[in-house]
């Protein structure tokens, strides 16, 4: 196969990077090849969300995006979300809630939740579901993921104090009534 030389440059987790690529290479393949393997392959069809990354702050299926479409953009992967010493807020709550079973969907969930938290001020259930609907999980029934996420969101809402948490219809207890 003839390889024409192509490169793509984008900001990856805050660092400017340039990678060799091909016009038909997907961002997911490039990221995994370059060691950002927290982003997972689940379907290659843009339906399961295991490959979710942030592109200019928007949750994006890396399995559908051609790597060259990332040119000049800001890409963030799960590797930017936390470390062993300092896991992210949602990651901590996921662990505390027992929401990580096989864990394969979790990096994608974390990235979609990050997009939600950075883009929205209103964390009502319908908006949360809109953001999280594209991330499938087959292990948990979403219960504990939901509980973990609501804990983070309720705390943020309380902090901004736009409206009292107590007055809301749903709470961090999720569906358990």
């Amino acid at each position, binding site marked *: 196969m003839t390889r024409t030389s192509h490169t793509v440059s984008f900001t990856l987790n805050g660092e400017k990077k340039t990678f060799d690529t091909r016009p038909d290479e997907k961002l997911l393949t490039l990221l995994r090849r370059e060691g950002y393997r927290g982003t997972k392959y689940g379907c290659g069809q843009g339906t399961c969300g295991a490959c979710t990354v942030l592109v200019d702050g928007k949750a994006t299926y890396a399995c559908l995006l051609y790597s060259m479409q990332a040119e000049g953009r800001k890409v963030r992967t799960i590797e930017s979300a936390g470390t062993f010493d300092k896991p992210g807020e949602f990651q901590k709550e996921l662990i505390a809630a027992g929401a990580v079973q096989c864990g394969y969907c979790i990096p994608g969930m974390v990235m979609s939740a990050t997009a939600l938290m950075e883009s929205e001020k209103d964390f009502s259930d319908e908006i949360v579901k809109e953001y999280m609907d594209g991330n499938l999980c087959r292990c948990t*029934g979403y219960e504990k993921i939901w509980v973990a996420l609501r804990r983070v969101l309720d705390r943020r809402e309380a902090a901004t104090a736009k409206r009292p948490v107590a007055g809301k219809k749903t709470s961090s207890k999720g569906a358990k009534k």
Partner: protein
Amino acid sequence: MNRHEKAKNFKQVNHSVTKIDALQLALGKDSYVADFVPNDALIIKMLWSPHAHARIKKIDVSKAEKMPGVKAVLWYGNVPRIVHCTAGQGFPEPSPYDTFMFDRKVRFVGDRVAAVAAETEEQALAALEVIKVEYELLKPVFSIDEAMAPGAPVIHDEPEAHVPIPVHYEPKKNLVAQVGCEAGSFEKGMKDADFTFDETFETPYAQHCPIEPYVSMAQIASSGRIVITTSTQVPFHCRRIVAQTLGIPVQRIRVIKPRIGGGFGCKQEVLLDDVTAMFALRTGRSVLWQFTREETFRTGRTRHPFRVRLRAGVKKDGTISAIGLDCINNTGAYGGHGLTVVSCSGGKTLPLYHCDNIHFDGKSYYTNLPVGGAYRGFGATQAFFAIESVMDQMAEAIGMDPKAFRQMNHIRENEGSPIFAALGEGREGTPMTVGSNALGECIVQGAEAIGWDKRTDWRGKTGRFRRGVGMACLMQGSSIPDIDMGAAAIKINEDGSFNLTVGATDLGTGSDTVLAQIAAEELETTTDKMIVYSSDTDLTPFDVGAYASSTTYLSGEAVRKAAADAKRQILATGAEMLGLPVGEVFCENAAVLSRKDEKKKVSYSDIANYSLYQKNQYQIIGTASHITKKSPPPFAAHYAEIEVDTWTGFIRVLKYVSTIDCGTAVNPTLCEGQTEGGTLNGISYALTEQYLFQNGRMMNASFADYHIYSMRDRPALQTILVPSYEDTGPFGAKSVSEICINGPAPVIGNAIYNATGARVNEFPFTPEKVLAAIQALEKKK
């Protein structure tokens, strides 16, 4: 004190300890098979059969072999022809040997034809395109009826096909298995009944849909041995079956199971590893084969579709006088798990209710459709749809509340069932009485949570949207008695930490954590002192793997025994250090203490250092194996409230309540997680999941067209753990993971009836089916 209150005194068990791999997984650290693949690994792609039933007349791979980047091509002409079975079961398997690495015949759309290993995926795909195959099309078999018809095309006409154990197998008739039993007299029971029923149910295909598709990597170690890193539930069976299929000794193979991205049964199959191992041998390179989602749907294993005929008789006083269960499963093109799944459809359901006259007949047939395998619930799921639907019908006939009818008839503690002895997995079962049983309490608590007492008859319901409440009772098993074995080893380190090595396979369930808790409880230390390493055929003891709801109950007891063995050594060394007889010391909080003077103590760390470096040195290491004599059933009662749109047939689940008696919940949060996940999978299966075929080709092989429930779809789920204490399990535990998936189909079916008066004996309960049933009912009026 109730026996289950014993669990309240445990310090590690019965606590929701944090899952030990949760942080690593949440951070996205390298954990799964594909994360460990070197960048220069060859990529494998398979040419799949486009035909449901055909013979390969000619195949020419010579062009493909010369394509850029191609390192090897495999097809039937250049691999050993060794008949085997891909089902990862004990040995010899209770499943037919009807599979070859590659064959001259293809038996379903998605069967193997030829495989390519190339430097890149694109090169491998390009090479597939130039493989020339000429097929002789054979008449396909697309249903159980076609398979069993006289003169039906024979799907397995190869002379090698056989079952390695003496069971009924007639490939010439497409019959994979037949099993049956009778207790009392079914005919007499039906005659004695005041009301009799004869209903037929159909249950659909489904795929497990782990978010990580099937994936396997093989490499050649410097020693020349083959190292297979694979997403498997059965690493030891994988090693054995790959050795068999390649015709090489087990000794040459090491199988490593890293973290697994979900399995639910589909990875209890050796579906890729023979090919990855063969390519590694042929090329000397690292090779990776990862299924696409489409391949996972078409070629991956599925839930066996069933036809269930249920005949039953009930007396006016509520006595169930007869149950006759006839189950036929469609095992697809290969017969793995065909016998055991159909056997469990009786064995794991019929003991639930008292009945003196039971008939069971199970059959399994080949078709030219996707292949059935192990799937959470394992036959019980399919049969419970029929049994629990007819339970409601019987209750209604005698004018009894369905809950009260179940309360009257369900099995109690210390009761047996002739079914336990009659139906095993591939052979007769094991006689057994039920030890722990909190089903009665499950029924009560679940009813309260759903508001059962407010349930009203469908005849009073009007309007477009009608609500209904349904219920079902369930059981499963815990391990396969006298067959399955698990083993563990545990050794101490200088700082009082322990290496716990187990063959048991954590496929995302959290079993590594559960087993660490069990070890820590027995050793009187804390779970965070356990370094768990599981499922590496070179480094850990044997275990059959993660299936049959066995890990907590079976492997857990092996771990407890191994920990007890290590504890004996710790006590002996501690006593020696304290200058006391062993009888005068005990363990507490990671130390050995004098019974007479608790200030006299030595820590586990001191004991480890003493035993490793100072005097009478030796390695404190405990090992144990365990087989079970029983398969204690977990019990559950499920309830749902739904709303039916009678104009469209659309069903909305408003609330779903799953109770579960899993004995001691070793880790209550993980037990809830199992129940929530399995329940939602069951709801999704009951309402939306189905395989759509055109000429045997599955047409909806993506999550866009095969809908599994998302966060938006998720109804309100409530899980209630109801404690009991199973004396034969580790710290009172029995199984938890499978039973929950059996509930939603019958519960929602019964709720549809309670909402509308319409019975739908076939799911998924799509709007079309529900609407047709409602309209049929309207016409009758």
